[in-house]
């Protein structure tokens, strides 16, 4: 009897409640995002509109089939590409330096130490260190939560237009991301690994330098590399808000409808991002330390082994020096063809006159909470609100006991609309809705595409199926895989913002354009990692489950095995898509980001400050949820 209970309990524990809950949450989110903001599907439902959209889509294909390859234009594109690259390199370089310092503060194991303390005196003495640690963490949170595009919008007014603005904006955001992840890496190093240094009397700095840092250096290197790749992708589009480089030109040419030039620019962007992809893969291979890995590079001698690190550092320094030189003296991408010093505004920041410009934005730090309309604050302003009937009143038509009537909620919400802060919070629904729908579509598409994308199921399937396919079938499979990889490559190589520009240009601005842009980029990013995790499954597991159809083997064996990985990646992607939703708002889709730039450009810094605060909160809340769900990047 008792045995039976145990079995039942075991099965009960295995019942996938989590999956049902997750499905429910996804369903609620999807319904919520269709309900909370207005979607416009008339492009699909209205035949006249559909026809026009189709016409425009064919126009798009036609436009992209005739890129502008005149010599002048190619040369200008090349200059812009270099400008983009130099901005990205500089951003990464600055970010690594600042992130390192801030992460030392933000990592508890480094700034506070791991020895247990006892007694109130010990705790009190630790207090400053704890405070310093949380101060660093908050700084990183804020830096990370404000998207690079929002930083650029703010910085354009201080530094002017140009690649330096883009570089600094990117650097600020990347500092936040790198700093957080570095500190997590350092905190997750097992204290046993460096307890000897403590035992020998090493202080916190020595423990960090000789214990923690080397133990985490692989992860730090590899993550930095990944962010550098992202920096290049973002640098290619940050010009849309004044950051210089390819993005500025693309924005301009799309506005003028010169599709031939746009095509060339996009080809260069694609080349740049794919080049970065290849280079970082190469570096990653060099960094691989596991000698048992079949594709590891085995160093032949001590000299070769050590020199690799020096060569790597020297190469990185050369690239950084080049980018500084290029930005200062070598950049002749300007319209007059003369080299222009873009570093000037940065150097000028030192003098008092330039600092006045920063004082300009002090209002940004005093967000407008519109307390008057909810009955607090300045009485004079409150009176104006009352006269205009724009105060928040809940008890006008319904009392609190009417809470069961839906109409009461509608009326309360309507009244709450008078409160500026509520409107700001509501506008966050737009990026959220775009992120939810975009991520969902992207994830579904990536799952479907990872079957043709997977090496295991296309080229090496005979290893577990036992079949020996006809050469023609094999060729077909190769073509299938090449197509799938091509789709993945292009949709991840072109940044979301650029996709959004295209969809806006052809199908009008709106949530739909933004969501499709996000979905497409998500597809590209995820299909790679999805099929990688499928390819990492040992073939013997397929061998056992294979029943004559590769596709069902993929659906019922490969899918479930890699499901957990897939979901983790998808959640990360969702996080970054929410930020992307805000960014798409900044470039014109609408919602939170749009209102932020609007108020900023109208010099209503207090209101822009409120929007900025909500942007920060949005990111921090999602980050805390992901931490709560233990989906941390460090695993």
């Amino acid at each position: 009897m008792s045995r039976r209970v145990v079995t039942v309990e075991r099965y009960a524990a295995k019942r996938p409640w989590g999956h049902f809950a997750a499905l429910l949450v996804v369903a609620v989110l999807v319904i919520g995002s269709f309900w909370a903001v207005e979607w416009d599907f008339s492009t699909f439902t209205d035949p006249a509109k559909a026809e026009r959209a189709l016409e425009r889509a064919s126009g798009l294909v036609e436009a992209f089939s005739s890129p502008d390859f005149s010599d002048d234009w190619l040369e200008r594109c090349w200059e812009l590409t270099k400008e983009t690259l130099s901005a990205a390199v500089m951003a990464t370089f600055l970010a690594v330096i600042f992130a390192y310092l801030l992460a030392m503060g933000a990592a508890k194991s480094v700034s506070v130490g791991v020895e247990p303390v006892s007694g109130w005196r010990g705790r009190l003495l630790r207090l400053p260190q704890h405070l310093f640690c949380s101060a660093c963490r908050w700084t990183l949170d804020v830096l990370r939560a404000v998207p690079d595009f929002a930083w650029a919008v703010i910085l354009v007014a201080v530094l002017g237009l140009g690649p330096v603005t883009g570089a600094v904006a990117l650097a600020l955001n990347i500092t936040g991301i790198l700093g957080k992840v570095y500190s997590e890496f350092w905190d997750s190093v097992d204290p046993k690994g460096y307890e000897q240094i403590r035992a020998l009397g090493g202080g916190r700095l020595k423990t960090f330098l000789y214990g923690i840092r080397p133990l985490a250096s692989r992860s730090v290197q590899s993550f930095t590399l990944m962010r550098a790749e992202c920096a290049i992708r973002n640098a290619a589009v940050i010009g849309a808000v004044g950051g210089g480089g390819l993005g500025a030109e693309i924005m301009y040419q799309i506005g003028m409808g010169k599709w031939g030039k746009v095509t060339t620019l996009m080809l260069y962007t694609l080349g740049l991002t794919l080049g970065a992809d290849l280079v970082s893969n190469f570096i990653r291979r060099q960094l691989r330390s596991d000698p048992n890995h079949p594709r590891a590079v085995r160093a032949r001698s001590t000299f070769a082994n050590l020199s690799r690190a020096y060569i790597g550092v020297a190469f990185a320094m050369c690239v950084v020096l080049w980018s500084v030189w290029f930005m200062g003296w070598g950049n002749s991408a300007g319209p007059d063809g003369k080299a222009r010093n873009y570093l000037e505004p940065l150097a000028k920041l030192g003098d008092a006159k330039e600092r006045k410009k920063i004082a300009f934005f002090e209002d940004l730090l005093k967000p407008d909470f519109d307390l008057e309309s909810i009955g607090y604050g300045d009485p004079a302003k409150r009176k104006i609100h009352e006269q205009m009937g724009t105060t928040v009143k809940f008890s006008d038509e319904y009392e609190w006991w009417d809470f069961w009537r839906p109409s009461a909620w509608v009326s309360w919400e309507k009244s709450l609309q008078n409160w500026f802060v509520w409107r700001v919070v509501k506008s966050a629904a737009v990026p959220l809705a775009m992120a939810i729908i975009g991520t969902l579509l992207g994830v579904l598409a990536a799952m479907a595409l990872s079957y043709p994308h997977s090496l295991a199921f296309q080229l090496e399937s005979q290893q577990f199926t036992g079949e020996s396919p006809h050469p023609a079938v094999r060729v077909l499979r190769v073509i299938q895989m090449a197509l799938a990889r091509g789709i993945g490559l292009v949709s991840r190589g072109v940044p979301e913002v650029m996709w959004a520009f295209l969809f806006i240009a052809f199908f009008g601005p709106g949530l739909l354009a933004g969501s499709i842009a996000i979905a497409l980029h998500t597809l590209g990013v995820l299909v790679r990692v999805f099929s990688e995790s499928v390819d990492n499954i040992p073939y013997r597991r397929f061998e056992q489950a294979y029943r004559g159809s590769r596709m069902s083997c993929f659906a019922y064996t490969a899918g479930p095995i890699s499901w957990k990985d897939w979901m983790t990646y998808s959640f990360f992607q969702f996080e970054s898509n929410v930020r992307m939703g805000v960014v798409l708002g900044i470039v014109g889709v609408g919602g939170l980001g749009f209102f932020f730039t609007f108020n900023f450009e109208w010099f209503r810094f207090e209101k822009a400050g409120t929007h900025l605060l909500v942007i920060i909160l949005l990111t921090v809340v999602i980050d805390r949820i992901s931490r709560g769900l233990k989906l941390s990047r460090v695993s």
Partner: protein
Amino acid sequence: MKRVGWLMIALAGIFSFAACGGGNNTAGGNTTGSGGGNGKAPDKIIITAIPDENSDAFKDHFKTIAKYIEGKVGIPCEYMHVENYAAAVTALANGQAHMSWMGGVTTVQADQQTKGEAVVVACRDTDKKFVTYFIANKDAGVGEVKDLKELAGLSSNLSFTFGSKGSTSGHLMPRHFFTTQSGKKPEEAFKSVAYSGSHDKTMQQVADGTHQIGALNYAVYERLKKEKPELAEKAPIIYKTPSYVDYCFVARKDLGDELIGKVRAALLELDPATEEGKKILGYWKAGKMVEADMSEWAGIKAVMESGVDIGG
């Protein structure tokens, strides 16, 4: 352990010191004033302009003006291009530029941001009775309307575009006339409301069907109609707004009355009979430059203060 503690304290100290330093300096900076120095004429005049058009012709136009002023006043004059409206205001407010070609909204913003330290130099004769055109894509099936209420009534499924967010003729005034005439916000009346960024982009995008309806500066429309008649044909005018004041040259007061006077005289002298005058005024579609005063922009200020409600 101890050393790290000291390091941290030192770091924290540096940060707080830097923060205080910044604060003190900015407070001090306000009293000493900035820009071209106190009353002393600068050795170079930097002019800028709101980029209400997105073309090389626009930059050339202002380079010509800079050269013209340089010749008349005898001080080197340089044109600095900025990418958006807010940047032009900021440049003027913090002394990066001495003089700027502003629209109505940006003139008022410059006045506010410099705390009254800005003065109107001159404006075009056309600026005192400026007009916005509403245009529609030819295939959208929207004919001429007698007022904007009619437009608001028939267009629930059309997409609409303004120009730049900070534009007077491309955003504030058309929005103002639309709301007062129809009682509806454009966001409520149209399927979507976008901001193309500049007047010529608005025209381009309405003509190619990205948006069905747009509002833009009449002078740009008239000029583009001459240059690219095929665009104007695809985007006919459906409504002309009542007139209002718009563009002008705004200068910082610390440029000195004498120098401002010289520049003003030079601008007023512009004559379509001369080659330079023809080039400059021809681009602007104006007959001559006239004197103006900041008080004339009070109407725009009132509209701005009554609130531009975009729903956020």
